[in-house]
C-alpha cells in the first residue's frame, strides 16, 4: 500500500489518537501526580495540575506507617511463586502436547481452558473450608497454590502455543545429530523456548499480581498482598488522597512497566490463540 498519505490527515490522526490516549491514561497520570502533592493541594479546588510543591513526603509516610514493605513482599512471593510453580508444572505438559500430540491432546487442552472459566465464587466456600482444614488460610503458601491453579490453564496454553511454533524438524535434526533427549532439551529446546517462557512468565506474573478475589477473601493480616493493602484504604479514615495516590502508584508502577513489555503476549495469551 505504498500510497502517499497527506500530512494533513496524519496530523488529524495524531491529534485525535493522542487526545484519546491521554484521556484514557489520565486517571493513572492524575494518581501519579497527586502522589507528589501535599494533602491540601490534592483536594484543592480548582485542582492544580503541575504547579504544586512537589514532595516525596507521602511516600515516606506510606512506607513508614503501613508496613508497605510486607505487603509488597507478599505480592512478590505470591505472584512470583505461583507463576514459577505454574511454569514448572506446565512446561513438561505443554512440551508433550506440542511435540507428541495424540488424538486427545486437543480435548485435554480445551478441558484445561474450561477449568479457567469456572466462576471463583462458585467454589469460594469449599476452598475457604479446605484452607482452614489444611491450616493455610492467610498464608502465602495457600495463595501461591490457588493462584497457580487458577492461572495454570493459561500458562499451559501459552507455552503450548510457543512450543508449537518450534518446528518438529529441528528436534529431529538434533536427534539425527546424535543428541540424547537430555541434550536435545538442554541445547535446542530450552534456548529456543526461552523467549516464549519469558513472556508467559511476564503475563502470568501480571495476572497474579492483580488478582483480587482470592487475595481479598483468603488473607487477613499475615499474607495480604498489595491488592488487599489498597482495599484497606477504602475505609473512610484512610481517606487521604495524596497518600492513597502514593500507595497506589507504588502498587501499580512496577506492573505497569512490565505490562508495557507484554502487550503482544497479552492478546495471544488471553484469547487462547483465537486472535492472532
Amino acid at each position, binding site marked *: 500500500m505504498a500510497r502517499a498519505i497527506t500530512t494533513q490527515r496524519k496530523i488529524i490522526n495524531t491529534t485525535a489518537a493522542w487526545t484519546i490516549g491521554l484521556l484514557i491514561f489520565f486517571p493513572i497520570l492524575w494518581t501519579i501526580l497527586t502522589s507528589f502533592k501535599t494533602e491540601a493541594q490534592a483536594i484543592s479546588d480548582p485542582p492544580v495540575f503541575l504547579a504544586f510543591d512537589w514532595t516525596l513526603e507521602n511516600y515516606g509516610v506510606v512506607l513508614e506507617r503501613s508496613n508497605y514493605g510486607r505487603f509488597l513482599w507478599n505480592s512478590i512471593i505470591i505472584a512470583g511463586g505461583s507463576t514459577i510453580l505454574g511454569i514448572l508444572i506446565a512446561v513438561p505438559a505443554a512440551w508433550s502436547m506440542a511435540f507428541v500430540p495424540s488424538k486427545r491432546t486437543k480435548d485435554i487442552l480445551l478441558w484445561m481452558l474450561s477449568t479457567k472459566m469456572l466462576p471463583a465464587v462458585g467454589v469460594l466456600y469449599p476452598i475457604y473450608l479446605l484452607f482452614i482444614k489444611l491450616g493455610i488460610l492467610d498464608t502465602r503458601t495457600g495463595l501461591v497454590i490457588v493462584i497457580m491453579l487458577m492461572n495454570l490453564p493459561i500458562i499451559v496454553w501459552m507455552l503450548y502455543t510457543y512450543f508449537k511454533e518450534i*518446528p518438529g524438524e529441528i528436534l*529431529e*535434526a538434533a536427534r539425527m545429530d546424535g543428541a540424547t533427549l537430555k541434550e536435545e532439551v538442554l541445547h535446542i529446546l530450552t534456548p529456543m523456548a526461552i523467549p516464549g517462557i519469558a513472556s508467559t512468565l511476564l503475563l502470568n506474573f501480571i495476572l497474579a499480581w492483580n488478582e483480587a478475589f482470592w487475595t481479598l477473601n483468603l488473607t487477613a493480616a499475615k499474607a495480604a498482598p498489595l491488592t488487599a493493602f489498597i482495599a484497606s484504604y477504602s475505609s473512610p479514615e484512610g481517606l487521604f488522597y495524596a497518600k492513597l495516590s502514593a500507595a497506589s502508584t507504588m502498587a501499580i508502577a512496577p506492573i505497569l512497566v512490565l505490562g508495557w513489555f507484554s502487550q503482544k503476549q497479552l492478546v495471544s495469551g488471553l484469547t487462547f490463540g483465537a486472535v492472532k
Partner: protein
Amino acid sequence: MGHITLSQVTKSFGDVNVIPPLDLEINEGEFVVFVGPSGCGKSTLLRLIAGLEDVTSGHIAIDGQDATEVPPAKRGLAMVFQSYALYPHMTVRKNIAFPLRMAKLDQAVQDKKVEDAARVLNLTDYLDRRPGQLSGGQRQRVAIGRAIVREPAAFLFDEPLSNLDAALRVNMRLEISELHKQLDTTMIYVTHDQVEAMTMADKIVVLRAGNIEQVGSPLELYRRPQNKFVAGFIGSPKMNFLTGATAAAYDAQTIGIRPEHLEVSRDSGDWKGVVGVSEHLGSDTFFHVPVPDSDDPLTVRASGEVDLKRGEEIFLTPIQEHLHRFDAQGLAIR
C-alpha cells in the same frame, strides 16, 4: 560403508497402511532417489531409514547390522531436512559443529572439521552469522555442512530443494551431485520432482501408495518403464497416452509415446490433428494437438524453427521403436 537393506518393511499409522511390505537394497556409494507424487510414502520411507519413525514390522539393516531398533542418533546417518532445520539460536559455526559436539570430539578437531566443511561449501565468510541472516541457498549449504562433518554412512535428503527458487535449485542440484562424486558416500534423496530424480540419481525408486513401482537407472526408467504409472511419471513433458482404436491397432489397451518421439508433417502421417496451443521455448516448441483417442491433447516436441499456426491441420507419426504398449492392467507389453 553405507549399504542399507530393507526387508519386508511395513508402516501403518493407526489403521492406515502407508507402506505395505517392501524390500529394497541400497548399495554402497549409490545416489538413490525416491520419487513419486505427494502422499506416496517416500518421506515416510526415508524417516523409517533415519529411525525417526518406528517400523511396524520388518527389518532395516545398515552395513549388515540390524538397525531396526537402533535410535536415530546411533545409526550413523545424517539428514538434510526440507526446512533445513537449522538451530536459529546458534551461529553457522555452532550449527555445523553441533553433531561433533554431541559426539564429544576435541575442540581442535571440531574446529578443523568445521573449517574444512565451510571451505568446501563456500561458507567460510558466514561462519559467525546466524541462520536468520542467510539466504535460502546458504541455509541449504549449512544444513549440508552439518551433515557432512559427521562423515555419516549415508546422507538422507528430504526434498531439500523444494524451498528454493528455480535458478538456485538448478545450482544446488549440481552442487549436491558434485558433492556425491567427491565424498563417494551413499545418498538417499527424496523428491516429487522427476527432473531432480533424472539428473541426480544413480538409481531411481518410483513409489506409488507405498509400493515400489520400479527401480532402475534414470535411462532404464525412461526407456523401459514397467507400467503406465512410471511411464507417465518419468520424462518431461509427460508421455502421451492413447486408447481405443488407435491403441488396438498396436494390440494394446493403451499406447504411450513421448512428445519427443512424434514426427510432425503437414502432408502425411498416422494420426491427423489440428494444432491448438503452442509453447515456444526458443530451442524447442511444444504443440498441443487434440486427437480422438486421447483425453488430453497430445504434446508434440518440435525444433524451435518449426512454425505452425493455431488451427493448422497436421499429421503425427510415432517413431515405432519408442512406442510403449500397455495391457488392461497398465503393465508394459514387451
